């Protein structure tokens, strides 16, 4: 099982702040494909790699990052603090 959190404009577009997945792929790239396959707004959001950043266990992660049970994955748009 992994926990997924969505932030800011992503959370609003997807209409969801978090979820847990029992079945999940081995990498972050695979997870993006799996989520995009839900279609509609999910497909739009995850189609553009540059517009969606990802963190695994609260650290920025590249798409080839492997996933294991218990991981927390965060998806969010480019940051705008400061």
């Amino acid at each position: 099982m992994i926990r997924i959190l969505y932030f800011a404009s992503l959370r609003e577009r997807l209409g969801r702040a978090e979820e847990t997945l029992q079945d999940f792929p081995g990498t972050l790239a695979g997870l993006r494909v799996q989520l995009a396959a839900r279609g509609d707004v999910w497909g739009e959001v995850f189609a553009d790699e540059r517009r969606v950043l990802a963190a695994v266990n609260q650290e920025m992660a590249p798409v080839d990052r492997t996933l294991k049970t218990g991981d927390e994955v965060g998806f969010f748009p480019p940051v705008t603090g400061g």
Partner: protein
Amino acid sequence: MHTEVRVQAEPLDALTETAPVFNGNSAVGGVVSFIGLMRDLNQGDQVTSMTLEHYPGMTEKALADIVGEAGIRWELEAVRLIHRVGEVRPRDPIVLVAVASAHRGEAFRACEFIIDYLKTRAPFWKREQTADGSSRWVEARVSDDEAADAWEK
């Protein structure tokens, strides 16, 4: 190096928060601080308020990592990095970066490095409310990426 990193919903008193980086430390020869404030105009529109969102846990870690990286690159006595979340209004301080060092050069460079990295690496997102009653997410700027990338060279 003494560091303090905070994310807070309470108003930020930037001047009061700067003093602790040099008070009581006679090794400090210079302090450089950056205070980021909310403006009332963005992309030609009047902005009445803004809501700052963050990723609790990750944001604090990202800020601590950026301060730690500055401490590796430069000889620093103290760093304070405080960032607001929640609702802010024009003229409110959003972020304070205060850096104390023996010499000004280190403090100037470290301060700019920290705010440049924060702008592109710390998970905060701004949603602004405009005078006509609508609201929108603020878009990331290419110029911020370029400023952060310049430190890699």
